[in-house]
């Protein structure tokens, strides 16, 4: 079986303006969303308490809310099933956060003995700040590391193009999380960074072909070379991402609530990763003015592809 039996190269580069325009629009929309609505940060970053409580029967959220009336700013919602509730408490200045979960649980148990604690997470303010700092630092380090590697392995234009394309993915993932106000937690951040490393692969594979083509297709123009490289790697791109997506979809369906947003971030990242590394990175490389002379060095230093 074969999905892509393409005889002629698809002129991707002539769509360059169009695809870049789409990217630009989504990118700007994402940035605007992030600026206006912001992210719905999980307690990993904001600090606070989250409790998951399981009941032996279907629960009435309103009843739970009223039994927790004495505790200010408490939010109660269903979680996963109709027998599970998620209770959130923000950080408070004077109360020891670690104690608060016990107060809530004893209040709930007093009301309904079938209440059973499934999970408690409490994050103090200092920890949240550190996680934000470490997260940003990790993002920076990943970007620099990948750029450095691509610059050594290929050329600075490729490095720049790849990192622009992939940071554009990251911003779009964040844009989705902002638009739907999905909870941005530590595992989501991990997913975003993993996507960053993963979708750069895509650019690498295309760049590899471009470099090879510069050596083999001596008579072709730069856009022709890039079109050929993209067309010939397209089958692999779609199949690889499809397989990874199969796994991620499985996580989305079977992984439960704990892995839900993690898998969601990966899904968006993978889908936009295909698009951006092919249709964003390559035009940028072209516009940055890559030429045959950058790769076809004097005979002595030529290496086998």
């Amino acid at each position: 079986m074969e999905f892509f039996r393409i005889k002629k190269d698809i002129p991707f580069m002539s769509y360059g303006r169009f695809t870049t325009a789409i990217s630009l629009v989504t990118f700007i929309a994402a940035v605007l969303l992030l600026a206006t609505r912001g992210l719905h940060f999980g307690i990993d970053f904001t600090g606070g308490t989250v409790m998951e409580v399981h009941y032996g029967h279907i629960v009435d959220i309103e009843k739970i809310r009223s039994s927790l009336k004495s505790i200010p700013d408490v939010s109660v919602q269903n979680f996963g099933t109709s027998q599970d509730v998620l209770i959130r408490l923000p950080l408070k200045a004077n109360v020891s956060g670690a104690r608060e979960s016990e107060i809530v649980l004893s209040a709930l148990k007093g009301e309904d003995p079938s209440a059973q604690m499934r999970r408690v997470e409490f994050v103090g303010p200092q920890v949240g700040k550190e996680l934000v700092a470490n997260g940003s630092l990790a993002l920076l380090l990943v970007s620099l590391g990948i750029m450095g590697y691509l610059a050594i392995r290929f050329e600075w234009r490729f490095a720049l193009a790849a990192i622009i394309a992939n940071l554009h993915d990251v911003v779009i993932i964040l844009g989705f999380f902002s638009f739907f106000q999905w909870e941005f937690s530590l595992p989501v951040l991990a997913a975003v960074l993993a996507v960053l490393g993963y979708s750069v692969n895509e650019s690498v594979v295309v760049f590899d072909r471009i470099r090879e083509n510069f050596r083999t297709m001596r008579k072709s123009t730069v856009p022709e070379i890039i079109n050929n490289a993209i067309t010939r790697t397209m089958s692999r791109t779609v199949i690889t991402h499809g397989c990874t997506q199969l796994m991620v979809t499985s996580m989305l369906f079977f992984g439960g609530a704990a892995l839900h947003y993690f898998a969601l971030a990966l899904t968006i990242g993978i889908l936009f990763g295909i698009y951006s590394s092919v249709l964003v990175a390559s035009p940028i490389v072209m516009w940055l003015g890559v030429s045959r002379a950058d790769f076809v060095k004097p005979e002595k230093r030529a290496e086998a592809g």
Partner: protein
Amino acid sequence: MNRYPLWKNALIALVLVAGLIYSLPNLFGESPAVQISSTTGSAKVDTALVTRVENMLKSANLQDTGVYLDPATLKVRFKSTDTQLKAKDVLQNQLGQDYVVALNLVSRSPAWLQSLGALPMYLGLDLRGGVHFLMQVDMKAAVTMAMDRNLGEIRADLRDGDIHYSGIMRQGDEIDIKFPDKDSADKASSEISKQFPDLLLTGSGSGSEYGVTLTLKPAAVKSIQDFAIQQNITTLRNRVNELGVAEPIIQQQGADRVVVELPGVQDTAKAKDILGRTATLEIHMVDDEHDLKAAIAGEVPFGDELLKDRDGNPILVKKNVVLTGEHINDAKPGFDNRTNEAAVHINLDSTGSRIFKQITADNVGKRMAILLIDRGRAEVVTAPVIREEIGGGRVQISGHMTTSEAHDVALLLRAGALAAPMEIIEERTVGPSLGADNISKGFDSTLFGFIAISIFMTIYYLAFGLVSVVALGANLLLLVAVLSISQATLTLPGMAGIALTLGMAIDANVLINERIRDELRNGVSPQAAINAGYERAFGTIMDSNITTLIAGMALFIFGSGPVKGFAFVLCLGILTSMFSAVLVSRAIINFAYGRRRVAKLLIG
């Protein structure tokens, strides 16, 4: 062509067999068990205990499935958690307070696997259930407390030396002393610099007021802080031991934090209570006048208490409290400067010093007992003979101690209280049912994803797809084996990492298969196409894996807790996938196609 030399095939086979053996324990699962360990030096965990425990279980009609003795602990396996819980209660009641009986899980794998050191993966708290605390030690308070102690001692010193001062107070981390004349100030300065080498003196003043400001030397601040965290860890460890947790983790994290992980603990309220509690020290007089044997027989004299020392020997102690541990500022192991014997040096505060001086003056030749009272249970840490009246608050306990005993006693005297206040700044508690849920969800995600990929790859690439699937299976096997061998903590994000790595690892095989098709399209012969496909795809595989590896390593360095686990699995999976996707799949292809003339490849 397309044949691996024998050594290469043998190596691949060897790695796979090792992978199989070391991932095998995960299939056997774990059975409920109780773990018995000793709390005191006198209660031994030995074969005698094994028979005792076996008899206790037999008389309680509880069936165990095996008793295992390792150097420090005794583990008893049971069929069901029900028996396990019953057995725990029975054993704890009968063994008494000298032993800790904790619930645990023990690998069910056969003995030959265990003898190879093959263990199942170490599950994190989000998978097995338990409590994770991150505690912040208040370092500023540690320094302030140290300065408060110094303040009290200096005040007593000045009073003893008849040096006049008009005022002494602590301001922040400084002590300011005011003197009415220069003479007193000079005398005090020389006395203080002699007695308190950790303090830095700066004099100031003119006219009628002379002042001296004392600050801690930077090295002293550091040693106070290091000491504070060490002592807090020691205290926490002692307390956790009493919770009866099978495999607690108590570790320093960074300069001023302590991680406490208590697998299997459900009652967080109790855990927090015990971790936050302060044990107390008391000094009593020993009653050597009454008959100890009669007391052991049950006739404890009025106003006395029969206690045990660290070695389990009975000792008769008066109930009247002479001094409480609040008055102990510090205890350090050291040496008696006359006899050069190991000793413990104790520093009392000014009130303590006064009481102590009085007591020792009245009781020369008698014994005093230092008691550690924890959860209402008293134990005699040490019971030295009073040789002479002791003033000045500097007490030395010596005689019949080894240096390590002196160290232990000093530690115990200090461990009574925390050196600095601690606060829980992060808590993650996962109930056991959620833990089990998480395992099955993580497992299902991986399983169904794997099946989906297998079906697709086999349909799309036929024989080569099947080989890719086998290689992917080998990758999973190796990944699980390495995780089992390294005993790295596997968390739910870690399980997601396994699934994701598998989804990404198939990329290498897709690259190879696409290259082979490419070569075939260009009219290359099947054998040459296989060779070229593998050779030329390798560079690309390397490149794409390295970028993911960079991301994984950054996550590992900066990630905390669950994210670190994910990053570890991601990095590991990339490395194992390089082996399985390239070498294992090639070896299989070589076996299938390598030794013969091939007209057509079954690659779809």
